């Protein structure tokens, strides 16, 4: 039994038309929704930074951002300075403030710096720009830095807020596609809150980072100077990714903090 739809010509035609229709439909949708999506992502970055420095609407066990409506205003209120650093080894080559950076980069806000692009720049031997947000809340100063790395399936990233001694004051982690219930739990309160109070640097000034460790005998996380937090069961690789991005990205900021103390 041969049908009209079995012929090669029809099959080719169908394939071409289908690709054309589906392709243009998706392209149209993607480009017409792009401004709205970009705006959502921009607000989310502000919410993430504010979350890390403790400006959030957390209840007993859930992580909640400040609402999208007030995020912009809160960001202006709490974030006093946005710095862009260029670091080589243990020397700061250049430090720009927000106005300097914006006049050089088409009025782009420093908090919109794409960490992924900057990491790629560093790999190509170009200068990596390191954004650092200085916030103030209730008389305390917070230094918030973005970090980015690899999880099990896809990218993971986050914001860590520190005091002038590089003691963690708050952390926010997020991921693109970690396993729900396992690796995806890095954005749960019980994991993120463990980082609060952890030291990143020894008193002598050696950068240690924080390792997400299995069986560290400190499940309640009382020891804040062991440079370790308890891992999530069943999410070893995601946890290792978190340790790695903290070590790699935050170590770049060490010269800045050492300068602060001088």
């Amino acid at each position, binding site marked *: 039994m041969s049908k009209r739809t079995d012929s090669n010509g029809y099959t080719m035609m*169908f394939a071409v038309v289908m690709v054309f229709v589906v392709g243009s439909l998706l392209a149209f949708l993607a480009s017409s*929704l792009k401004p709205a999506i970009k705006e*959502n992502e921009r607000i989310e970055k502000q919410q993430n930074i504010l979350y890390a420095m403790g400006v959030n609407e957390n209840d007993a066990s*859930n992580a909640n951002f400040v609402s*999208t409506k007030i995020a912009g205003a809160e960001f202006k209120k709490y974030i006093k300075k946005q710095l862009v650093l260029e670091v080589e080894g243990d020397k700061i080559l250049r430090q720009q403030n927000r106005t300097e950076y914006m006049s050089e980069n088409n009025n782009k806000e420093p908090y919109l710096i794409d960490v992924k692009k900057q990491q790629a720049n560093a790999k190509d031997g170009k200068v990596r720009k390191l954004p650092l947000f200085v916030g103030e809340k209730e008389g305390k100063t917070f230094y918030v830095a973005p970090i980015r790395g690899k999880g099990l399936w896809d990218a993971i990233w986050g914001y860590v807020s520190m005091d002038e001694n590089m003691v963690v004051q708050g952390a926010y982690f997020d991921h*693109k596609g970690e396993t*729900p219930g*396992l690796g995806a739990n890095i954005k749960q309160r019980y994991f993120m809150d463990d980082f609060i109070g952890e030291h990143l640097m020894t008193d002598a000034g050696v950068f240690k980072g924080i390792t997400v460790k299995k069986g560290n005998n400190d499940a309640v996380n009382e020891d804040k100077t062991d440079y370790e937090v308890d891992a999530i*069961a069943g999410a070893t690789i995601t946890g290792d990714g978190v340790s790695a991005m903290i070590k790699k990205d935050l170590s770049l900021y060490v010269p800045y903090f050492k300068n602060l103390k001088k």
Partner: protein
Amino acid sequence: MGLLSKRDAALLTDPLADNNPITIQVLGICSALAITAELKASIVMAVSVLFVLGLGNVVISLMRNIIPSKIRIIVQLIVVATLVIIVDLVLKAFAYELSKTLSVFVGLIITNCIIMGRFEAFALGNGPWRAFLDGIGNAVGYGVILIAVGFFRELLGSGTLLGFKVLGDPIEKTGLYAIGYENNGFMLLSPMALIVVGILIWIQRSRNTSLIEEN
């Protein structure tokens, strides 16, 4: 079921029991083990598949007379991928919070063998209304198993349900933990999902012996 004829009603009810996509046809196992460590993720996945399979079955059924048989699998894949991407984009623009929750499921939905299986086995040969009923029936059958597995894995693995500590606090040693109960960390790992599904299959077959194949 006054609204539906007996044949149509069977499309809805068969996948719930004696023709369940997971326990009888053994389809959709990959997602059943990937995302059932938590009850909430199981529910989200079940609802997403309900939506995609119901709609996808109708679309494929409407196109069934013009799809060239040589490339029908590719066409099915494109239909389901397009549907999922459209939903994902629209959510990202208008319900960003929800899209963050769902984003990890997008890939899992596209590659779910139940969806491809129903397109191929049913929607290509039946009208849109029956295809819709078949899609809903199979998605619910899939969802029921997913939620059952998610329930046991979260309860026994983490001692929580939907994030609530129903068995007490393992660190503070309250509730069941006060008398020496421990969470079973193995429940959180993928192999246990298959073992739980296996136990469900066992229960189902011992209740309905006609399902057992003769050797």
